[in-house]
């Protein structure tokens, strides 16, 4: 088939349009870095932002350096990586299930992962449950916890994928399936709690709130080691997700192995969810908030939606965690409470407005 290949004004207008999207991503990155510095500076001891930058860039020693490197930085990085991971997991789930209400939380995958992690910690001895709220659960075998969380998340994912193939896989139905799965796995976690002591129950409940403050450097390293390669895989498949957005038949007629892309997308999204939940507890709605905010601003094109969700997810969790530390200071709220405060109204808005992916 012969096509006139003379590039012209449309291509140059399009190049300008793409520049706008790249600018948006660059602005998000700058905002994220600035917020990270602010977030490191606030807390029970306030460290001036200039000193934060000097400590991070020039490695200036001192008391502030100890606080920054040992306490604040792992927390901030955990918030960034977990927020980014949950947001891209939500974005990919929305794409591969072609359902705008999908996210690790609304589909019950977070709850499943939470149950798996609770099994590993309380029954398989992968962690220690103590009565100290500040250090309620210590994960001693992160690999076993992650594997158990992943297995449980995969059971939920398998159920979702099986139901998504049926004719009744309307968005509402999928969310109802998510409600059922969340109820089922929450019941499982409650069952474990029933056989625990009162102190252990309090500790497990506190642990499931979702809190990035409990992340240590090794936790951050493992989170990053999972989230970044998954992000790279998602970016490699960005055109495949765009094709899936156009419908399965269109995607397959464009040469995309739709089922393979769908299953790997769900597997990796569940893996991210499992790892985040294992270390930080259940943090809801980031997977909805991040992608939908970016969609409103720059559209559905996965080439920009994925990196945009990555950055905006990191920003949302970082801002939430910073607010959680300062709104009721000296009390530090679990960040999961704040994300639910932001996310639940958005979820209602999407339902009332008539969702559109």
């Amino acid at each position, binding site marked *: *088939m*012969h*096509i*006139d*290949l*003379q*590039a*012209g*004004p*449309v*291509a140059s*207008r*399009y190049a300008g*349009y793409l520049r706008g999207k790249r600018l948006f991503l660059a602005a998000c990155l700058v905002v994220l870095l600035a917020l990270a510095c602010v977030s490191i500076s606030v807390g029970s001891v306030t460290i001036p932002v200039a000193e934060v930058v000097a400590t991070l860039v020039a490695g200036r020693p001192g008391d502030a350096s100890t606080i920054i490197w040992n306490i604040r930085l792992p927390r901030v990085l955990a918030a960034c990586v977990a927020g980014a991971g949950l947001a891209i997991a939500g974005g990919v789930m929305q794409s591969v299930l072609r359902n705008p209400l999908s996210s690790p939380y609304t589909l019950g995958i977070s709850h499943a992962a939470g149950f798996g992690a609770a099994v590993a910690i309380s029954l398989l001895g992968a962690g220690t449950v103590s009565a100290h709220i500040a250090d309620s659960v210590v994960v001693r075998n992160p690999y076993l916890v992650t594997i158990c969380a992943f297995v449980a998340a995969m059971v939920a994912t398998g159920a979702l994928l099986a139901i998504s193939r049926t004719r009744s896989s309307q968005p509402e139905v999928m969310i109802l399936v998510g409600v059922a799965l969340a109820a089922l796995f929450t019941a499982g976690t409650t069952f474990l709690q029933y056989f625990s002591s009162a102190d252990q129950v309090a500790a497990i409940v506190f642990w499931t709130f979702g809190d990035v403050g409990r992340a240590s450097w090794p936790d951050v390293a493992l989170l990053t080691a999972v989230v970044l390669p998954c992000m790279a895989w998602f970016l*490699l498949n960005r*055109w*495949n997700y*765009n*094709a899936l*957005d*156009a*419908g399965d*038949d*269109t995607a*397959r*007629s*464009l*040469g*995309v*192995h739709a089922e393979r892309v769908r299953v790997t997308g769900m597997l990796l999204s569940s893996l991210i969810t499992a790892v985040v939940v294992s270390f930080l507890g259940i943090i809801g709605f980031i997977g909805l908030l991040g992608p939908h905010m970016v*969609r409103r601003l720059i*559209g*559905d*094109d996965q080439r920009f939606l994925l990196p945009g969700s990555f950055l905006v997810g990191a920003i949302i969790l970082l801002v939430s965690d910073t607010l959680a530390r300062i709104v009721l200071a000296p009390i530090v709220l679990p960040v999961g409470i704040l994300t639910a405060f932001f996310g639940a109204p958005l979820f209602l808005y999407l339902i009332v407005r008539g969702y*559109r*992916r």
Partner: protein
Amino acid sequence: MMLEVDGVGFGYPSHPVLEEVSFSVRSEEFIAILGPNGVGKTTLLRCLNALLRPGAGSVLLEDRDVLAMSRPEIAREMAYVSQRNQPMRMTVFDSVLLGRRPHMGFDVSSRDLAVTEGILRRLNLSDLALRYVDEMSGGEVQKVAIARALVQEPRILLLDEPTSSLDLKNQLEILTLVRDVVRDHGVAALMTMHDLNLALRFADRFILMKGGAIHAAGGREVVTAETIRNVYDVPVTVEQCCGFPVVVPCV
């Protein structure tokens, strides 16, 4: 022959859909696949590019077995436009550029951009290039879907009732476009249709299906009052108007 369809059959456990369907397609040929609802037209189209795996028979694209080709290989030879196209929150340019997926490496090449621009110009969509598809009318969305199929640079276009939900003006525009693409670019087009008069006006050959099999196939001469009555179970007369046959229901 460009495409040889030989004894293709397809069925679900509860009932057969296609039985022993055989025909051939030449380049620069516009074939209309006609028949009542549920007769297997869409199933046939989906068997040709292996969206469905036929239970029997073969589909050969210039002696290559289509069912043995990989998805990207098929996508470089055949493009498919489904009946309903989901309007996406993407610009027209991006949505059409997506059609280059089977040719793309890691990223979009300058050729991908040039082909996309060429097709947008060809379909008079240049002015709408940066509009969001979900803000467009049904006719424009369908044109975007056809543009996406054309940037695949296919040799065979498979179109599943692309005009079924459009008004007369948009139907004529889409059909004229397909006919021109077939004539100008050496492409073969197979289109399932319900409007017999538009089919007679634009297509070169006709396949009339009944009960999952081909009832009649050939040029305009096969679309007679008798074959239409046999296929649709509706009495009609076929009259001449402006040099074209026109089907008039006798009710």
